[in-house]
């Protein structure tokens, strides 16, 4: 497993808290898939995560973002998206 960056570590913690992960946040592989296979999250989990992200980082994830396929692909891609759009 690759090392998590600082932001990835933070986002892993946010995900673990939002959806009650059994895996400890620091053990999450940054490249593991979030949706369905991989971490096995569903659309409701992703909504929880999106709500937590908007509270913590001050921006909204949008359903009509053409990049959604990549944004939600993994911890790494989600963190990269947050780094780009965060307002706090």
């Amino acid at each position: 497993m690759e090392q998590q960056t600082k932001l990835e570590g933070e986002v892993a913690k946010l995900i673990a808290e939002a959806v009650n992960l059994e895996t400890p946040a620091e053990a999450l592989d940054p490249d593991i898939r979030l949706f369905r296979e991989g971490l096995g999250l569903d659309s409701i989990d992703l909504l929880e995560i999106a709500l937590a992200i908007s509270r913590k980082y001050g921006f909204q994830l949008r359903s009509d973002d053409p990049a959604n396929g990549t944004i939600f692909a993994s911890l790494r891609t989600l963190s990269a998206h947050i780094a780009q759009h965060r307002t706090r």
Partner: protein
Amino acid sequence: MKTATGAAWLAEPERGSAAAIGLISWLTLKLGRGATRWLLYPVCLYFLACSGQSRRASRAYLVRVLGRKAGVRDVLRHYHVFASTVHDRVLLVRGRCEEFDISVQGAAKVDGILAQGRGCILLGSHLGSFEVLRALGHFKINTPVNIVMHEDNAAKTGRVLAHLAPELQDRVIAPGRPETMLRVKECLERGEIVGILGDRPLGGDRIWPCRFLGETARFPLGPLLLAGTLGAPVVLFFGLYLGGSRYEVHFETLVEGETVAREQRPEVAARWLERYVEWLEHYARRAPYNWFNFYDFWDAGAH
């Protein structure tokens, strides 16, 4: 998926060929409802002869809801009610509501919510016609209605309808995508209605067992978890077909709109779901032939 095969039988290209549906729709719009309704009889007889699985499912359901033996005549009546609602859909999506005698009860429950600028989840079912909702503009509810449903289903049952009313296609929200629930949230935030059929798992769903007509069946918990997460009001919707040109629409308030803490959410959602299933049973008894789940509903979890 087995759940989809039964119910969509009339519209499935491999059964009722797309060409035949296209022809019937065209004739219906040209000649009107009354002049084309007789076509439903040969269609029903054809399905009675050819669809063993739906026939068995129909009978198994009818025995439960009627509390007596169900014969071929009952199954035929069941098919005819379903075929009637599919036939009427062609006119409903075209806004031809004057052909129908529709009574509405409880519309104020939805009005009250929308008047506050809030959106609402309209939780329907495969009991009766959801399309009769298209007639609500007729009753001064002019808020956009989005519907969560499988696009491939929509493509099958809806290719003809999509052609008739292309504007409705934009309002279909595909389930099981990463952004599905985000889209629902955005629709609700804009004060719109989001329709969900709450009696069939949409795949990959969280399931909860509830007693329905005397035996346990599996229902999706997802829509109510969503309501608890977003604090969205949930109103139940039943569009029952009562024969002739008569429809009876019922709205029932299920949840006023309260955000539930995450720890309590599964439990609270399950309680709401149980109430939904009680209403479902209530209206299934009121209009028993309106049940359009033509697969083994109580055994669905095994598939």
